[in-house]
């Protein structure tokens, strides 16, 4: 047990040493942390009630009292963008959680058992990948009442295929390794082998896939809300603020510019963080990371 702890601490230290040298990834990580704080503290930070209608200040341009202007109902855009970050974050985390659990279970089953099980699950993956995701999402949403929970569920249920493939690939190689064969030879059951011995060693690429899956889910949710099929009003989301601003593009550019910038920076930060984690976890996986190309901090 003691040896295990020391070994883990060593791995974490190695990871951190490599990760903290990557300035871009650190920036991404800091922005992501700030975004989480902002989302949690939105009620404290928001200067106005995000749903507070003010008919005297309709479509007011950015000013000292309304930094990012107001919308056609006189609601404060800054407050709505701040509250929107809660929806984005919640949808991102929960839907990626669903996708990761589903993908890990199916990928593990396929990779460990092989044969028919593997064949069936992988054909299911192929099948799901044939559907353009937005068409599938729209078709499902046509039949369901849109709410934040259905959005999380459908984004998660249509996004597990990449994780399943990753986990399966890891299992295929790990299954043949000595420590797995030895533990099987002393009578460890399938569940014990999977969860205790293989899965912990297969989690690194899954962690990376999760970090990169969150921004993808955020983009998808924003797109759905923009079409009016995502999280419904009165909840403020980045997508539906943009949708509200569409008819007023010419006179109220602030409703288009700022929520979009919020999406852009959020997605960019998660992507940089995800790349950084991948580089730090496994130097062999190191594709030409953005930090290395830009020669920052190396």
């Amino acid at each position, binding site marked *: 047990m003691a040896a295990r702890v020391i070994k883990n601490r060593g791995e974490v230290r190695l990871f951190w040493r490599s990760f903290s040298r990557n300035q871009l990834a650190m920036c991404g990580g800091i922005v992501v942390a700030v975004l989480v704080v902002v989302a949690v503290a939105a009620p404290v930070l928001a200067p106005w009630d995000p749903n507070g209608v003010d008919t005297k200040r309709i479509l007011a341009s950015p000013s000292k009292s309304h930094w990012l202007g107001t919308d056609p109902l006189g609601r404060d855009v800054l407050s709505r963008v701040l509250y929107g970050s809660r929806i984005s974050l919640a949808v991102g985390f929960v839907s990626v959680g669903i996708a990761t659990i589903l993908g890990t279970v199916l990928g593990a089953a396929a990779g460990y058992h092989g044969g028919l099980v593997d064949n069936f699950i992988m054909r299911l993956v192929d099948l799901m990948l044939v559907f353009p995701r937005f*068409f599938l999402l729209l078709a499902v949403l046509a039949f369901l009442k849109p709410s934040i929970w259905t959005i999380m569920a459908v984004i998660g249920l249509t996004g597990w295929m990449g994780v399943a493939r990753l986990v399966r690939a890891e299992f295929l190689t790990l299954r043949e390794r000595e420590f797995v064969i030895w533990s099987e030879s002393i009578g460890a059951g399938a569940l014990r082998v999977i969860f205790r011995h293989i899965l912990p060693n297969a989690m690194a690429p899954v962690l990376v896939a999760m970090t990169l899956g969150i921004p993808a889910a955020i983009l998808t949710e924003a797109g759905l809300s923009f079409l009016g099929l995502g999280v419904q009003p009165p909840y403020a989301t980045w997508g539906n603020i943009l949708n509200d601003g569409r008819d007023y593009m010419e006179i109220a550019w602030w409703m288009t510019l700022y929520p979009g910038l919020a999406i852009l920076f959020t997605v960019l930060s998660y992507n940089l963080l995800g790349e950084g984690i991948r580089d730090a976890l496994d130097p062999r996986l190191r594709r030409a990371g953005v930090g290395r190309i830009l020669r920052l901090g190396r």
Partner: protein
Amino acid sequence: MVLFALRRLIISIPLLVGITFVSYLVISLAPGGPLDFLTPEDPNASPEVKERLIKEFGLDQPLYIQYGKWLSRAVRLDFGRSFLPDGKPVLTKIGERLPITLLLNVIEMLIIVGLAVPIGVMSATRQYSLYDKVTTVFVFIGFATPDFWLALLLMILFGLQLGWLPISGLRSLNFEYLSFWAQQWDFLSHLVLPIVVATFGGLAGFSRYMRQSMLEVIRQDYIQTARAKGLSERVVIGKHALRNALLPVVTILGLSLPGLIGGSIIVETIFAIPGMGQLMVQSVFSRDYPVVMGNLVIVATLTLVANLVADVAYGLVDPRIRLGGRRRRR
């Protein structure tokens, strides 16, 4: 080669059946059946419509019989009729919309490949140069830019502020009064913004793949050999390296197709282009279920066919794939 193509074809038949099955599963998601959504205020909810629905979908029968019946009509490309007052057959509706979506996607694909290959090759051959850094920044911003937001910004800038380009539809109102060439120009100018928006994200991803693929090839021994025997850098890169670097990219092109087609939903909705994507959104909002299902089946089948073509093309250009005998892992 024929054998290889045939094998790929046979593998995709179960997928085709799966597509129809998933599409049918979607309709059964509605709690209490699709009739529940026809509320009294709904103009579609007349007793005749309900009657027709029950008959058309066999809603009084068990699910597997319903599916069987629907499938037997679907293989003849008969997806029933639209719920909307015009009551057109679903296939007619889709047929009206398909050409423009295909045209847009083919143009986008050509532009993406045409630009991403040189961008990727130049970044790879000048690794860590200023050019490489600039394109990398561009790629990361391209990944993170929501396409609908980019569309809105371009509309504000080029459509509303500068007035250079039209921002909606495919033709101007005075289209019929224009001369032939003016008509062509009018049509093309309507396509510029949608195509720029649709290619932006794909270009970022694709040039990155191209760069990665090229970097891997450049380190191979046969490139050293080509250099050692005195070939010019142009021939080494343009002929020996590029050909091999393009191989995996063919597959990625096939795999990225669903994303591209899915993108037409956003682009066609924003720019009011009467294609499959817009039809999908409209029928989802009007709860026109036969059109939704027909659309889903057709789009997925198109993707399947495109993947098949990409697979066969891969086998055609890379003998290792078809002669290796072992299925490559994706």
